[in-house]
């Protein structure tokens, strides 16, 4: 039987936020803001999840004039499964020790 390493609280938070967004695409900066995590934490997690096939990525297709297209993220089927696996024990854990978690509004324009 393969033993799966339990994700870190930060990874679990990113998974939960992406799971909450469902089929909608999320932006990296919005994830940072919603979770209260730094880009130096969120992006390495996104990279790792993407490498493992748990997050899929694409580029914004029609960015506003003068602005480069943004990178978008959402969970794959495997990622959603992992998020469900992680979510159950996390609910039982002490809520106070978990990172601040908020709803990521897909496609929200940043300030």
């Amino acid at each position, binding site marked *: 039987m393969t033993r799966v390493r339990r994700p870190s609280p930060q990874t679990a938070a990113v998974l939960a936020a992406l799971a909450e967004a469902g089929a909608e695409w999320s932006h*990296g*900066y919005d994830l940072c803001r919603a979770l209260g995590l730094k880009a*130096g934490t969120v*992006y390495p997690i996104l*990279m790792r999840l993407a490498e493992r096939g748990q997050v899929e990525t694409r580029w914004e297709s029609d960015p506003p004039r003068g602005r480069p*297209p943004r990178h978008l993220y959402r969970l794959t089927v495997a990622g959603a499964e992992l998020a469900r696996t992680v979510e159950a024990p996390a609910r039982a854990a002490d809520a106070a020790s978990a990172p601040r978690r908020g709803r990521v509004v897909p496609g929200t324009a*940043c*300030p």
Partner: protein
Amino acid sequence: MLSFLPLLFLVALVPAPLLAIAVFVVRLRGVVRRGGAGGVVADVIAGLRGGVARPVWPVLIAVVVGAAALALGLGRLYLAAIADGSRWGFDEVLLAVVLGIGAAIGWAVVAGVFAAAVARARGFGAGAVAGSFVLLAVAVGTSSALPLLQDLAAPGGSPAVAGLGERDLLSPFEVFLVALVWALPWPVLGAALGARDRASDRRVRDVWQLLLDLATADLPPSRSEWGTALRAELAVIEQPVERRRFALGGVWTALRAGAPRRVWIWAVGVAVVVAGGSFAASRWSLAHDRAGVLAFWMAVPSTLLFAVALTTAWHGRSFGSGMRAGALAGAASLVAVLAVGVPEAVVWAQARAGYLSTGDAVPPTWQAAVGDVLRPEFLVGMAVLWAMSALGGTALGTALGRLRVAETTGDPADAG
């Protein structure tokens, strides 16, 4: 030691100047083909103008003042430290000489990064000029502090030091100025790197964008998409505080994400070779009544780091990858040197009553023998030579890797 000198010369001193000359010739040939002799004159004028125009010249003035203040401050500390003779059991003057050479490497990196930043905004010529002026500013600032330091050392002239072959007490500062010559190719190489990634249609909005641009500009191909993603996200952030936070996080991500997994394998491999080689060199020298292994520690890890940095940078076509691999392999080499050096020093002290490093002195105790391996002037000296070799290998590997892509794609822009 003499037998290792050609090797050290080849890996630590030759690659960067040769590469800078090659880059310069290729650039010059391109300008001549496009615009003839008139084009060269116009490019030189544009380079000189762009290389000193605001905000470069205020930075250069700050560098002159900063270098003078640094030389004066460090000089006072140094003179105070050596005033009562050796107190720490090692040669403080020799350590200062080695640190001076290390400082020249540091300024080479600063000049290269500055050249890359200016080249991104204003082109190769302006970047090369700006970076070269940084080195000139450092030399001017440091030189201006020397008369004051001479007065502090001994009014009327600095006394000679027997340990340095009757050289002047302020030799570390003079050696630093000479070592700055080694830094000269790096503005050209930095400018070539920055100009290659030049985004002509994007203006630089603030220092945070510039920082993130530089950190993510040279990621390996497998990571470059993430660099673009970070830059695109920063473009939509308006609040200065948020921009700073995001950019610093992005820089950290780029530093962490740029290291391919195989660098750990390289580091372990280098450590094993250095450890095995050190042990063999120690026992061979002991058996054949030769000098110690200091020359081996200077030259062989330097060559290995040169090879690792070159291969990694060539494979990833990335300067950052080469430097990360070189730094990790360097740290592993240091661990290997100490792991083998400490027990071998005790063996030497018992078998020959001599130091493992040079073999020509007699340690009265095993503690002195071990202390000799840990002498900071030796360790820093090794690190300086290793850093020079890794930097040269990285620059050469990056250039060769991009040349390979340019030949494959037929796009000369890829060659940088």
